[in-house]
């Protein structure tokens, strides 16, 4: 075991994958020689050579199309999109191509591509470096969508994603790259070195990308979260002094309905968190499914705490971010109802 940041854990996952399987390759804007703007691919080009780790032109459609072509010819490409906000030029290649090649060829051709991309706010990225666009991707049949919340999961889930024969969009909450973040921007930044999930095995292991994790058992209510919001959920529940069951979804598609329904059936109350805008966000899907599966167990309307239906503002970042106060208010609301 070693202490790792999420960046190091992702780097280690790629290293382990490339060491083990020579068909794994990795590319993206600034992701070759320089090792990526966040350093996730640092040192890999030197170790594995130019044909396996390389810089790509600034063209996300080209990056994803190239990955599709390579995957259809036996490689397992890991494409880095520098910021999730930049993924949209490649949207057509994801929706119309990547997600459907297996289906439209009845399994003759498959494209096991993993797209890694940093998402979310909390670093003063402004509207073009802060988006959480996961909901768009959960609406596309044929791709998996995952988002880890800590270094241990990041490494195990990335290895599982690359080894999975389905295409995977792997969202990396960039606010968590260097340390956990509980939603309070005024506290000094925390480091992964003092967090239990910052303990990461050096070698190969996987974290199941079909399973959510109950990060904290509880009986009064269920809080569903993923990515950065997992940490905000835990801290808000502590501050509100409630016995909350906090579930880290880890995988959005296909989400772990069993774990979710079991918890909500037990607690009867539920708060859903995400950083992305509210309307047609992933929370809407979760709530619709929960009311189908858990209606008779529900004691109160389910409440969402999300980003606002506005672009992510730069200066007012913390007024946008669904922080502790808003989460505590929601907790109170579902408990009082």
């Amino acid at each position: 075991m070693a202490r790792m940041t999420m960046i190091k854990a992702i780097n280690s996952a790629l290293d382990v994958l490339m060491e083990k399987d020579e068909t794994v390759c990795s590319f993206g804007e600034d992701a070759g020689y320089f090792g990526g703007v966040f350093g996730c691919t640092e040192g890999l080009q030197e170790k594995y050579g130019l044909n396996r780790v390389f810089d790509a032109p600034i063209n996300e459609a080209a990056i994803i199309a190239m990955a599709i072509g390579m995957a259809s010819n036996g490689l397992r490409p890991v494409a880095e999109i520098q910021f999730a906000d930049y993924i949209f030029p490649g949207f057509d290649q994801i929706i119309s191509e990547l997600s459907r090649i297996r289906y439209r060829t009845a399994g003759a051709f498959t494209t096991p591509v993993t797209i890694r991309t940093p998402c979310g706010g909390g670093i003063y990225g402004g509207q073009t470096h802060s988006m959480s666009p996961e909901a768009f991707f959960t609406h596309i049949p044929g791709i998996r969508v995952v988002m880890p919340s800590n270094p241990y999961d990041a490494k195990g889930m990335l290895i599982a994603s690359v080894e999975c024969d389905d295409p995977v969009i792997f969202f990396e909450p960039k606010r968590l790259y260097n340390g956990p973040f509980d939603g309070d921007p005024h506290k000094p930044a925390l480091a992964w070195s003092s967090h239990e999930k910052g303990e990461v095995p050096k070698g190969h292991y996987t974290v199941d990308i079909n399973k959510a994790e109950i990060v904290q058992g509880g009986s009064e209510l269920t809080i569903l979260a993923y990515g950065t919001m997992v940490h905000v959920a835990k801290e808000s529940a502590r501050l509100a002094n409630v016995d909350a069951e906090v579930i880290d979804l880890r995988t959005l598609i296909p989400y772990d309905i069993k774990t979710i329904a079991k918890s909500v059936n037990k607690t009867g109350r539920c708060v859903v968190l995400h950083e992305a805008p509210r309307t047609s966000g992933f929370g809407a899907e979760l709530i619709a499914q929960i009311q189908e599966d858990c209606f008779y167990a529900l004691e109160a309307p389910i409440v969402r705490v999300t980003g606002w239906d506005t672009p992510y503002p730069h200066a007012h970042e913390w007024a946008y971010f669904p922080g502790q106060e808003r989460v505590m208010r929601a907790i109170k609301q579902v408990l009082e109802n």
Partner: protein
Amino acid sequence: MKQQKNGNKTGFFVPEPPARPGERPDFSNVDCSAPGAVPMPAIDCAAQRTHEFAGGLIRVLDDKGHADGPWDPELNTNELVEMLRLMGLTRAYDERMFKLQRQGKMSFYMKSLGEEAVAVAAAKALDDEDMVFPSYRQQGILFARGRDMVDMMCHCISNSKDNLKGRQLPVHYTWKEGSFFSISGNLCTQFPQAVGWAMASAAKGESAIAASWIGDGTTAEGDFHSALTLASVYKAPVILNVVNNQWAISSFAGIAGGDQASFAARGIGYGLPTLRVDGNDALAVYAATQWAAKRARSGLGATLIETVTYRGESHSTSDDPGKYRPKDEWKSWPLGDPLERLKAHLIGLGAWNEQRHEDMLSEQAETVRLAYKEAESFGTLREGPLSPTASIFDDVYVEQPWHIRRQRQDLGV
């Protein structure tokens, strides 16, 4: 809004084709240089050496069917007859399928009339293991690679034997065994994918190259730029073909900027070698493809090829070309009919005659008729049997996840 009129100083310019319905076809802008006008550069020449010919036209067959010039691939008569046969078969197949669509036997069809040489001659110049990423008008490649015609028809009529389980529109073939990638309905997406495929082949140290085809209208897509950028940057072993058949449904090539510069000339800015070829001259298409394939296999990277041809039929069974272009425009097309030109060449060589040609065409029509009878025995879209209904939920993911399983149960299958 300001009424724009071309030629006026106000408003913007909207290109118009030389002729619309009721007008006399006008192809005076098509440059038909004589065979030999474009020299054949060395395989390992600098890309820039080819750029001076981006506005010219590589031709081997002259108007009388005589082969001449440096691009003559010097094929033997068996090879020439084989190409003629494959082009004839493609045309016979298209003819029948188009009619069957009109009779309600399938939902949709697209002919490659007049463009048979573009697909057949290129396929013959490639190795069978070279992966092709075609558009929907290169069915000739399937015949050239020996795909079973009944299987092709079973796909088009979406029956129980459709290898794509009824998931794709007719004509949107996939044939992995024949190194024929899946045809998308979204335009140009396959162009940069072909580059990625070729890069993987190079990375693995394999000799197979990739080739892709798009139309003139499709060059306007961003993925055209993506493909050319990737091909240029990574010197990928790929051939990128633009089939300039003059029409994109009802929009003429000028709507894609074809009046300003040739499509071959698009490659100049990327530093890619570019060839502009008479697409109705099977020998020229063969030679250009062979040149580009040799270059790619020698590690010298990608080539952009524009094949100049004419779409002899509607875009698909869903449009009426009489509404946007002169009805008899194809008859005035200065580069003629690819089948007739190869036939004339073979007759000139003494290797073919009218009788053999007639016999071939009627045999092919009969082959197609019998193949359809057999295909129909496996079902039709309208009458069934189709692939099992439950199969609509398969192959979305490797394994069926819970939410799709629930939806399948909801449908009761």
